[in-house]
Every structure is written in C-alpha cells, then in structure tokens.
C-alpha cells in the first residue's frame, strides 16, 4: 500500500493538532485534580464521546474486524449484549456512588467502602494491567505500520510514544479526553469510506447478504449449543460470561472508562456519560462488523473454504484499505486508526498516572504532601508509564492472538471485581475483609480455572467459551466468598458508609426536563438495544 504526500499531509495535520491541543491545555493544570480529573468540569457530550473512544482503541477496531471476518455477525454480541446493559447500569445505579462520594479513582472507592488492603490489591493490579494494555496497543500500532507503510517497528513505537508523552505530560486527563473526542470523529470519517465503497462493490446490503453464508447474519439463531456456531459458545456462555460478568466487570469498574465520567461537571452529567455513549456504541458494528463481512465477501483470501488454511484475520481491515481506498481517503483511514491507537494508549497512561499517584504513591509511599508535589509526581508517572509501555510492546510481540490475550487479563482481574462492587454498593453487610478475600480468591479462581483448562482437565468447545465461563466462575467465587467471610468478620460502622452504599444514601431526585434525566436515556437505549437484537436474530 503506497501512501503519497497527500496521505502524509493528513497524518501530519492530525499529529500537529493533538500536540497543539495538549500543549495549550498546560496553563490550566494548576492542581492535581485539574491534571487527573480535568477539574471535574467537562460537559457530558465531551465525556460521553471520550468514554466510548477510550475503549475504541487499536485492539478493539482491528480485533473486532478480525472477529467479524471469522465469526460473522456474532461479533455484535460484544456490543449489543456485551456492553450496553453494563453502560446503562453504570450510569443509572453506580455513578451516584462514584461521583457522589467524590472519590478520585476506582481503588479509592474500595478503600472507603472496604479497607486499605482491598484498595491496594486493586490499585496494584490495575496499574500493572493498564501499562501492559498500553504496551499491547503500541505493539499493534507498530505492527500495522510495518505491514502497511513499511515503517520499522521501532521508529513507529518511538514516534507514537513521544507524541502521547508530550500531550499527556502537558494536558493530563483533559488532553487525553480531548484527543479521544477528536479520535471519535476521525475513526468514523476514516472507516466509513471503506464501508461505502465495499457495499458498492457487492451491490448494496442485499448483495452482501447473498454472498456470504446465512449464518453470518444471524446473531442468536445458532446459539442453542456451542457446536452449532463458529464461535463455539452457547447462549448461556454469552449471556452470563460476556454479557453479565465480563462486560459489567469492564464497563463499571475499569478506571480507564470510569475516569472519563468522573471528569464531568456534575452528577447528572456523570450519569449521562455512559448512557449517552451507549448510543454511538450500538452503531460501532457499522464500522467494524461490516468491513469484516465485506472482507469475506470480496477478498479471495478470506473466502470460507472448509478445511482450507486459516487466513490471518487480523489483517482483514488493512487489506480492505489497500484494495479499495485511493490516496487521500487512504490517508484519512490510516489517520483514524493512528488516532485510535494513540488515544487508547493515552487513556491507559492517564488512568495509570492517576491510580499510581493517588492510590499507590500518595497512599503508601509519601502521604500528606502538598498538592503541587502530587501534580509533579503525576507528570513523572506519565514519563515512566510511557517508558514501561515501550518495554511491554516488545514483550508482547511473542503473543500472536492479541484479542484473546486481552480477554484473558480481563477475566483474571476484572471479572471478580464486579462482584465486589455489586455487594459493596448494594449490600451494606459486606465487611472490609469480606471484600478483600472475595476479590483475592476471585482472581485466584480465574487463574485456577485457566490452569485447569490449559491442562485439559476442563473442556470447552472453543477458547472463547473457556474465557466466558472462566469469568463467570471467578465472579461466583468472589460473590460467595465475600458473603461467607462477611458473615463472621467485623462490619463497618454504618455512618462511614453513607454515600457509598445504596440503602444508606438519601435518594436524589434529578431535576430539569425529561431530556436531561439519565433514566429516560437509559430506558431508551435499552429499548433500541433489544430491537437491534430482534432484527438480527
């Protein structure tokens, strides 16, 4: 694929604007809260788009196009069952405790609700996982540019790391969020042309339907048993593992996304953040699932041949670019991908520097220093985080299927976490040590299950099914252990739990018109989600 001067001009303009935006935010970074939480001052349209984009990173786009070429429309389960309910739940039921209690991070909530040990466990595992993810994103980006533009792996890693470092260093979370919003528009404008031209080539949507197997268009009809569908997962695994545990674990407790909502200007805006984001989230399959299906219909190497060699699905999107996009639009598409890579990485770095500074450094290493000290530490942590990510990028080169690796990490750490939060927010009798042991043994259960699966003791039809069920069992372990340990350990005084637990927090009535109410948008979103599932049944 040959990029010419016009493509590079488009790419260059993007890099320039991100740096200018980041650099011009530096004068607003006066306190640590400005740097880590954007001074809690952003309107909900900005935080919503950032909430969505923070997740729409490198692996998401390339991996989901790959999944669509491999499994067809089953990929929509990652959106229409695997994200929307969790996003609505976060906005309606959990945000009042996150935003209302004025915590600055997810681990800080765990400290207030449970104890220091629970916070420490979560903070350290989150900080580590975040940097690993950042390294994975960077590796994926570098690999893409090596394949498409012939750039060396090292130069694209260093270049992107430098740009991210500059804008996060100067502008903190605000910079990261602003760039995520820019990315949101670029990824849509960059990927829609390939959908448009591709659909033109197959003769519209009907043409696409005719060219690929019918099962590629039916999201639920073949989910009765794991043997009947290409994913090798039954409906129960999808609903419990993906829809319930994995997606709730990710969307409601992962600080990377929750941090965007915490940057909102008030509680109602914080509640609307994930709910408003759920609408464009439902549309993301247009730019990831359709290109994957088009690759199957149009590119000979993805044609379904029983018993044939397995194609390299991760290259599906790029091959579509190479085949159909002329210079100009090509530069825009590459820029959209670059933007999603860089903002994914920046999102990880900002979440890391906040958790590191508030929950690790400010809690265990140097307590009670003046605010400026922590502001400075946040900037150092940014530099360290970027350097560590670069190191990780080189390590993950040896893992071939990035998406599975990501899910593996999620199910170890995030899956049990949702049980800890659910009990913490909605059951006042959960005790500090109940929370800690539930979380620790939940993670342990996930690791044990993985080991048993690898050793061949437990069997599933596919790796994905193993991941989904592993998340489910980890969640159950956490849930049960927390309840059991809570029954014989010392409870917290109820007065310390006000604002943190549902039954002890006075209900706030949201004011204003119907269109400002989170509940209205939440219900609407749920209705649209159900309709989509029915249409593509």
């Amino acid at each position: 694929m040959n990029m010419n001067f016009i493509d590079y001009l488009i790419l260059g303009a993007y890099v320039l604007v991100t740096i200018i935006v980041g650099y011009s935010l530096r004068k607003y970074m006066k306190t640590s809260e400005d740097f880590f939480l954007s001074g809690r001052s952003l309107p909900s349209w900005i935080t919503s788009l950032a909430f969505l984009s923070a997740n729409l990173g490198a692996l998401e786009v390339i991996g989901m196009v790959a999944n669509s070429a491999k499994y067809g429309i089953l990929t929509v389960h990652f959106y229409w069952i695997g994200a929307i309910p969790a996003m609505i739940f976060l906005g309606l039921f959990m945000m009042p405790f996150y935003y209302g209690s004025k915590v600055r991070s997810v681990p800080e909530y765990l400290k207030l609700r449970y104890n220091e040990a629970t916070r420490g466990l979560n903070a350290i595992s989150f900080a580590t996982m975040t940097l690993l993810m950042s390294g994975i994103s960077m590796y994926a980006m570098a690999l893409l540019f090596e394949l498409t533009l012939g750039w060396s792996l090292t130069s694209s890693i260093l270049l992107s790391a430098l740009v991210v470092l500059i804008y996060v260093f100067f502008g903190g979370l605000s910079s990261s969020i602003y760039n995520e919003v820019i990315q949101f528009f670029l990824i849509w404008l960059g990927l829609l042309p390939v959908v448009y031209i591709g659909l033109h080539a197959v003769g519209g949507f009907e043409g696409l339907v005719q060219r690929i197997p019918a099962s590629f268009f039916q999201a639920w009809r073949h989910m009765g048993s794991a043997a009947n569908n290409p994913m090798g997962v039954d409906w129960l695994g999808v609903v419990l593992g993906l829809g319930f545990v994995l997606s709730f674990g990710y969307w409601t407790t992962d600080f990377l996304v929750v941090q965007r909502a915490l940057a909102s200007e008030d509680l109602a805006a914080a509640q609307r953040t994930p709910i408003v984001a759920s609408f464009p989230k439902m549309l993301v399959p247009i730019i990831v699932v359709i290109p994957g299906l088009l690759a199957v219909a149009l590119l000979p190497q993805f044609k379904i041949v029983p018993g044939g060699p397995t194609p390299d699905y991760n290259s599906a999107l790029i091959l579509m670019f190479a085949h159909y996009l002329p210079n100009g639009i090509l530069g825009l598409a590459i820029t959209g991908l670059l933007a999603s890579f860089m903002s994914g990485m920046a999102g990880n770095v900002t979440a890391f520097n906040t958790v590191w500074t508030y929950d690790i450094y400010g809690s265990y290493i140097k307590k009670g220093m003046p605010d400026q000290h922590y502001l400075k530490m946040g900037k150092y942590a940014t530099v360290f985080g970027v350097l560590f990510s670069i190191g990780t990028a080189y390590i993950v080169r040896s893992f071939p299927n990035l998406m599975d690796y990501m899910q593996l990490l999620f199910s170890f750490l995030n899956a049990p976490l949702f049980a800890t939060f659910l009990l913490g927010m909605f059951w006042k009798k959960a005790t500090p040590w109940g929370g800690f042991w539930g979380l620790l043994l939940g993670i342990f259960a996930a690791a044990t299950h993985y080991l048993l699966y690898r050793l061949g003791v437990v069997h599933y039809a596919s790796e994905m099914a193993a991941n989904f069920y592993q998340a489910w069992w980890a969640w159950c372990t956490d849930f049960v252990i927390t309840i059991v340990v809570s029954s014989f350990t010392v409870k917290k005084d109820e007065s310390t739990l006000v604002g943190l637990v549902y039954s002890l927090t006075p209900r706030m009535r949201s004011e204003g018109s119907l269109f400002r109410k989170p509940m209205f948008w939440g219900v609407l979103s749920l209705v649209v989600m159900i309709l989509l599932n029915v249409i593509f049944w």
Partner: protein
Amino acid sequence: MEGSENQKHFFDLKIPLGCLLGFYGILLVAYGLLGPSDIYERSLSLNVNLDWGILMIVISGAFLIFAYRRKKA
C-alpha cells in the same frame, strides 16, 4: 490534595476539531478535483475524495457555527 475551582475553564474543543476537519475537507476536495484520476480505479471509479471532502467541509462548518454561536451567547 486540594480540589479544583471547578469552573469551566478549558477552551472550546469544537474550534480545533472544526479547523482540522475543514482542512481535511478542503484538501480532499482539491485533490479530488486536481489530482490524478487513475487512482479511482481502486474505488470502482467513485471519486470518493471529492464526495468525502464535501461532507467533511459540511461537518466542519457545523462545528464552527456552533462554536461561534456559543461564544456570542
């Protein structure tokens, strides 16, 4: 660690975003009109640069108009 003053103190993102998309729009339209035409063999002889460029100019205009009206209000 003291809190922020919680004022709306960041600049309006619609301006840089509108400018970037506007620049892309103009660039794509110009390239679509003046650039080589054999590159469109790939895109089934659709001049997508021209079409997409016009769309981006419209989106950019919308951002800048909203930003301008908000500033005046």
